[in-house]
């Protein structure tokens, strides 16, 4: 638990150094003169990233959030690599967003999304470790009256080579903390890494096996009360009234409260009492302007965008429309992808304590700084009078990064009970109906082939929802949501994997009043289905092998081609599969990593799908922890295939129809294919891990389904589709 506050009473001053690149100034603290008895118990930090206790325990501070993706361990490996500490003595802690604010963002961004945890901070966290190492060595050298250059270090033991004397980090840490940090440090060459690249065990496993891990739902503070909540199920609707005359007298109930303009909460001694009271509370909603909204009307709105005159252009070269007119053969298809909920296993929750002077929040969040902002706004206090204590997340997937509605609500409730901590926990039903959903889109693709079956032109028209327009229009580019084109862009982290002679990729923005949000993978999930399934359609129309058809378009994308070739070779593409088993391929660049998959499936006479095996390849540039990369690749198939098989939120009367795992199912262990992961880091760049592979999960399976059945599925999820052979 990262709730223990670091003392800010210690006199400290900031030394800005210009050692870090990319415009990030690595701020280092040099504490001097431990001022109070209270702080004497805490060893001084060597720098912002490293605290070393006298017993040689190394505490590495982690700014990003752990939600299962393994970033906690990976980032600790990065710091420890340069620190040269004893890995077996490493523990971690989260600094709080309030501390980050007070210290001029010494830990950089807390945002944990977009597969940025490691690739977005690899430089400065390694420098943090390297600077601390140099200060520790210097402290030892000073104590010995020796030259720093005569000292070396391994596993937290510093050795003075000429004399053979040794000491440990724990013994010199206090002295090191008094030193000025070096202005420059040189990071190791990747070939010299000893810890980065090793499949070390996660640092957070053991407490997760015994029930000791405290999640936000488990938090208990002295005097804490519990709250349940119901918000208006209709998007844009409001709370009209409630009648608390009966429930006020129910056991344990302390308060029945209006929260914001659209919700009512019950505060009780226990959450079960609060929830029971809510179930019996008569509530009247003002369903507002969207009460007529349904899935059919949204579908019509998006379908209109497929052929509308105006659209934003995300990628264009040559003249696609002319090329299609002159093509010997054209192929056209329309795909559609539904709304989906994140459905983290841990429902939304936050605990808040408010006084007129200070507001504190404990919560699982993917972005502590955004949670702090939300807390401050709800509290009516400046952020400097608030703080957020982060807790490991019981799943994030994008739900807990850009949105802190649960924090806003918890603080609003706590404001009615000054000084009393209140834990707000949503029901699963509340969670399902008040999400920030995977955006809904449709896509029309037209491809042209010449008389030799070569692709001469491709027109992709996406119609549908923009996340940025809803979440933060400032992130748009002249009104264009470039994020919508993930996986189809001309260059960058989400570049298209093909060189198409005449290409036009467009987005007709259509924003239904259902709140969209970032979601593990987000727009590559559907864009890779659109592009990779359509590539298969084109290959089929050209009478060519899907692998060969792709290869001819990938000569200028050697890293993407390499992962595709790797899965084809390992899966045995071109060789016969087991009886009844069929294969499908997909490739994508996402979050700067190159990923590919080959799926093997069978579909029986009743249309039942079995996904037997998936071979997946990833080139993330650098592979920090291979066994965790394997876990993330496997996990990407669970999340991605759950979405493909079952994921769908439908809208009726302005509300999400689904309410729980009964009508929003998730893949279970019996659906899970074997996954063989090829990790092939080619060096020279840093790609993401948690999300990229989700891009290829669905299209590889869909292309295998076509191979098995001759059926192109273009609407999802598969639970709605009859897969019996065409």
């Amino acid at each position, binding site marked *: 638990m990262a709730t223990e506050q670091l003392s800010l009473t210690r006199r400290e001053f900031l030394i800005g150094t210009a050692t870090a690149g990319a415009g990030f100034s690595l701020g280092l603290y040099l504490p001097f003169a431990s001022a109070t008895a209270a702080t004497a118990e805490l060893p001084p930090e060597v720098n912002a990233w490293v605290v070393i206790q006298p017993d040689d325990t190394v505490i590495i501070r982690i700014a990003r959030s752990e939600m299962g993706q393994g970033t906690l361990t990976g980032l600790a490996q990065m710091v420890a690599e340069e620190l040269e500490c004893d890995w077996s003595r490493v523990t971690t802690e989260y600094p709080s967003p309030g501390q980050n604010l007070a210290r001029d963002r010494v830990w950089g961004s807390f945002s944990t999304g977009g597969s940025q945890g490691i690739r977005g901070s690899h430089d400065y966290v390694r420098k943090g470790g390297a600077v601390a190492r140099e200060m520790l060595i210097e402290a030892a050298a000073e104590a010995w009256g020796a030259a720093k250059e005569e000292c070396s270090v391994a596993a937290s033991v510093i050795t003075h080579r000429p004399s053979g004397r040794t000491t440990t980090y724990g013994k010199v840490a206090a002295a090191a903390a008094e030193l000025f940090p070096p202005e420059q440090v040189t990071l190791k060459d990747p070939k010299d890494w000893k810890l980065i690249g090793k499949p070390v065990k*996660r640092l957070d496993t053991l407490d997760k096996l015994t029930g000791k891990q405290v999640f936000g739902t488990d938090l208990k503070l002295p005097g804490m009360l519990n709250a349940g909540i119901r918000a208006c199920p209709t998007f844009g609707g409001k709370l009209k009234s409630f009648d608390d005359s009966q429930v006020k007298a129910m056991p344990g109930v302390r308060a029945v409260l209006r929260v914001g303009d659209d919700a009512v909460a019950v505060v009780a001694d226990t959450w079960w009492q609060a929830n029971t009271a809510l179930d019996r509370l008569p509530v009247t909603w003002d369903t507002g302007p969207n009460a007529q909204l349904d899935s059919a009307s949204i579908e019509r709105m998006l379908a209109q965008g497929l052929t509308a005159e105006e659209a934003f252009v995300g990628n264009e070269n040559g003249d696609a429309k002319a090329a299609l007119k002159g093509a010997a053969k054209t192929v056209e298809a329309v795909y559609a992808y539904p709304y989906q909920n994140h459905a*983290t296993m841990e429902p939304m929750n936050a605990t808040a304590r408010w006084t007129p002077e200070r507001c504190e929040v404990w919560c699982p969040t993917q972005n502590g700084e955004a949670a702090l902002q939300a807390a401050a706004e709800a509290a009516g206090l400046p952020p400097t009078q608030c703080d957020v204590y982060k807790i490991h997340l019981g799943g994030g997937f994008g739900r807990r990064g850009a949105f802190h509605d649960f924090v806003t609500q918890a603080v609003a409730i706590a404001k009615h009970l000054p000084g009393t901590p209140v834990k707000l926990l949503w029901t699963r039903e509340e969670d399902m109906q008040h999400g920030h959903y995977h955006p809904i889109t449709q896509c029309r693709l037209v491809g042209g082939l010449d008389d030799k079956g070569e692709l001469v032109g491709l027109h992709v028209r996406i119609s549908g929802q923009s996340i940025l327009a809803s979440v933060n229009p400032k992130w748009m580019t002249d009104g264009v949501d470039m994020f919508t084109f993930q996986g189809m862009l001309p260059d960058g982290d989400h570049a298209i994997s093909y060189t198409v002679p005449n290409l036009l990729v467009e987005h007709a923005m259509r924003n239904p009043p259902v709140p969209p949000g970032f979601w593990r993978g987000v727009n590559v999930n559907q864009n890779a289905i659109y592009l990779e399934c359509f590539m298969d359609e084109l290959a089929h129309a050209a009478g060519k092998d899907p692998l060969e058809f792709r290869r001819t378009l990938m000569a200028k994308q050697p890293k993407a081609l390499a992962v595709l070739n790797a899965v084809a070779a390992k899966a045995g593409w071109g060789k016969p599969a087991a009886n009844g088993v069929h294969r499908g391929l997909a490739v994508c660049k996402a979050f700067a990593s190159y990923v590919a998959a080959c799926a093997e499936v069978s579909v029986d006479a009743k249309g039942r799908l079995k996904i037997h095996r998936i071979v997946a390849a990833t080139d993330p540039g650098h592979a920090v922890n291979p066994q965790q990369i394997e876990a993330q690749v496997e996990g990407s*198939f669970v999340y991605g295939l759950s979405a493909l098989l079952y994921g769908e939120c439908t809208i009726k009367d302005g509300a999400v129809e689904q309410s729980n795992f009964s009508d929003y199912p998730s893949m*279970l*262990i019996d659906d899970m294919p074997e996954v063989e992961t090829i990790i092939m880091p080619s060096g020279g760049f840093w790609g993401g891990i948690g999300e990229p592979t989700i891009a290829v999960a669905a299209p590889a399976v869909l292309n295998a389904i076509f191979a098995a059945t001759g059926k192109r599925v273009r609407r999802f999820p598969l639970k709605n589709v009859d897969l019996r052979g065409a």
Partner: protein
Amino acid sequence: MAKMKVNGEAVELDVDGSTPLLWVLREQLGLTGTKYSCGIGLCGACTVHIDGKAERACVIPVDSLSETQSVLTIEGLSADGSHPVQQAWAELDVPQCGYCQPGMIMAAAALLDSKPEPGDADIDAKLPNICRCGTYNRVRRGVHRAVAINKGRKS
């Protein structure tokens, strides 16, 4: 009023009898290792053992239990995380976010108690717990590894 045994100790609580066992464990007894996720007995995050069988605590009213019945939670599975399933899970680094894992571990432990050498079909049938992060393949390997650990102990 509720009476039962929890992790070997007799428990007597003044609580509304319709309260699900899950919330009695979490809110009255402070045993928060057993998780709330769906509340309708579907996801398995609240799996505990009742008289040795895996059950979903979120849909069991506490007054349906008697004082002779024994509830085992993740906190009582072993004193020190040394149950073969926990050992296997540690070896294979099974958890990701970890929220579903106490339920997953309790389901796996009950399976091994009833069938010391389960096959993959048994695992499919007896571990229908939802994990959204994607630990299923390591869970499967973990069960097989726990079988091996168990055998090593007995030999």
